C-alpha cells in the first residue's frame, strides 16, 4: 500500500515492497544504538589534575613558608603595648 503513490517508468524499475526492503535492511526490528569504542582519556586527565593539584599545593606551601621565614628573620619592633607594660611596672 505504501507504493501507491510511487511512479515508475518500467516494470524493471518498479520498487520492491517496503516490507521486503525493510527486512533486507534490518529495519523491521528495533535497532539498538551502535556502540563505538572511544579513546579513554580519563586516566590522563586524572594524572594531569592530580599533578596540577600537587604542584599548586607545593607552590602555595612554598610561598607560605618563605613568607613566614621572611617575617621571622626581620627584627620585631617593640609594640606600643610593650611600652605601656613597661610604664605599668615603673
Amino acid at each position, binding site marked *: *500500500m505504501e*507504493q501507491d503513490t510511487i511512479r515508475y517508468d518500467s*516494470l524493471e524499475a*518498479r520498487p520492491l*515492497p517496503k*516490507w*521486503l526492503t525493510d527486512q*533486507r535492511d534490518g529495519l523491521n*526490528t528495533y535497532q539498538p544504538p551502535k556502540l563505538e569504542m572511544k579513546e579513554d582519556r580519563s586516566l590522563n586527565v586524572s594524572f594531569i589534575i592530580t599533578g596540577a593539584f600537587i604542584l599548586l599545593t607545593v607552590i602555595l606551601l612554598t610561598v607560605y613558608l618563605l613568607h613566614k621565614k621572611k617575617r621571622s628573620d626581620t627584627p620585631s619592633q617593640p609594640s606600643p603595648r610593650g611600652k605601656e607594660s613597661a610604664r605599668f611596672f615603673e
Partner: protein
Amino acid sequence: MKPVQIKTIILAGLLSLACTTKVSEWVLLNSLPDKYLLVLYHKTPLTESVRNQNREFSEKISSANVVFRTLSRENIVEPYYALYYNDRLFSEYHNYSELEGIAFSPLRNKIAAELMSGKLGVMLYLKCGNEEKDERGLKIIRNTVSSSPFGEIIPVIELGRNNPEEKHLVSMLLNVESDLKDINEPMLFGVFGRFRVLEPLLAKGISEENIDLMIDFLTADCSCLIKDDLPGINILFDGSWENPLPAMANRILDENPELLHH
C-alpha cells in the same frame, strides 16, 4: 510470596514472551482483520424485496470482516454495490448476483485451514496465464521453499488469474497495490495471520533472495514497528480464527536455534 508479587512476575513473563513471538504467530493470535465496507448506493427508496435481500445478505456475511450499508445518492442512474477497504474503492458490482461468494470460496477456506493448522504462512502464487513465465516463477518458488528449513510448513498454492470460482479473491489480491491490475505478470503473495496478504513479489522479483526474505519476515521476532504498521491488506473472509493450533515454526526454531534471528 504476596499475590501482587506473583501477578507481577507472571505479567513480566508474559511481556517477555510477547517480545519473542514470531510475526506470523503474533498476527494470527492478536491482529484483528481490517474490515471492508460494502455499500449499496441507490437513488429511489428500496423495495421490500430488496430490503429482505439485504437482510438475508447481512446475515450471511455477519461473521466476515465486512460491514454492509445502504446509502441514498442522487447522482446515480442505477443502484450498485461498491466495496471499499480503508477508503479505497476495490470493486463495483452492478447486481446482487455478482456478490455471490464475496466472503468465502474454496481456496480461501483451504488457505485459512492451513493458517489455522499452525503453518508459518501460505505462498499464494497468482499466475498470469503465460505458461512460460508462470512455470519459471513456480520453479523458483518450489526450489526455494523446499530448500528452506521452514519448507514443510509453507504450503505453495497456485491460483489462475481467470479462475471464476475465485474472482473475488483475485480481485482483492490485485487491489493490494493500486497498479497490480495493470501488470500481467506472475505474482507471489505471502499470506499469514488472519488472511493478511503482503505486497507481492512479481515478475523477476520472484527470486530466491526475495522469497528467503519473505520467510525471514514471517519467522522474525514481532517488533513494535511491525505491529504498529503491519504491511499488506486483509482479505475479506468469513471464517473463525479462534483457537488456532500451535505455531509449527516454534518447534523448528527450538530444534535449530541457529535459525533464530531478530
